[in-house]
């Protein structure tokens, strides 16, 4: 099943703002909501963004996201060492009738 496209890694120093892109198609991101997940090594993924831009109540507002056309973007402001993790986007694909994920982006805090 076709996946979404993310950059392999993004790096920045503490305090900076980073963005992670997620590119899809009209059958997924273009027509369905996007969610974002944070995964630390050895741990299960955790939902950090749902319905394109909404945050669960326990996720700090340093995390934000948007969607435009067939692409989505996750932004992390005021980057902290504890933000070092793998980040995945996900969306339903209504042609495949399947959930599709991005390949994952490793965030490195320098």
């Amino acid at each position, binding site marked *: 099943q076709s996946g979404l496209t993310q950059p392999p890694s993004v790096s920045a120093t503490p305090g900076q703002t980073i963005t992670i892109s997620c590119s899809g198609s009209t059958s997924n991101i273009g027509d369905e909501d996007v969610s974002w997940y944070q995964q630390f090594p050895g741990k299960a993924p955790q*939902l950090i963004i*749902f319905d394109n831009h909404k945050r669960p109540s326990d996720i700090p507002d340093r995390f934000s996201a948007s969607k435009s056309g067939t692409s989505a973007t996750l932004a992390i402001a005021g980057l902290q060492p504890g933000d070092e993790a793998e980040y995945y986007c996900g969306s339903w694909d209504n042609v495949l009738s399947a*959930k599709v*994920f*991005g390949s994952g982006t490793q965030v490195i805090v320098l």
Partner: protein
Amino acid sequence: QVQLVQSGTEVKQPGSSVRVSCKTSGGIFTDFAFSWVRQAPGQGLEWLGGIIIFLNKATYGQRFQGRVTITADKSTATVYLDMNTLTIEDTALYYCARGRNGPFDFWGQGSRVTVS
């Protein structure tokens, strides 16, 4: 508080089958859908399929059609993943998660399946 607690590590031979369970608590089981997602060593997330509990209807990713079966036991609020004809490429961490076409808001701790 919602919790998804999965069964433990499995070591299987190629060609055999495996069952992984996911016992849920908190929330109304029949109000939700649940999915299975796997992660091979050093790799990303891959959706195997999901089940809408109140319809008892499961759908699967194309790669897994015919090889994977997802079922649910409403009496114990448990979701099951059965996978047959295992190959070495099925070695992975298998996660259950609450959700299907929408966001996956709660995840199990993962069940390691090694095919060797």
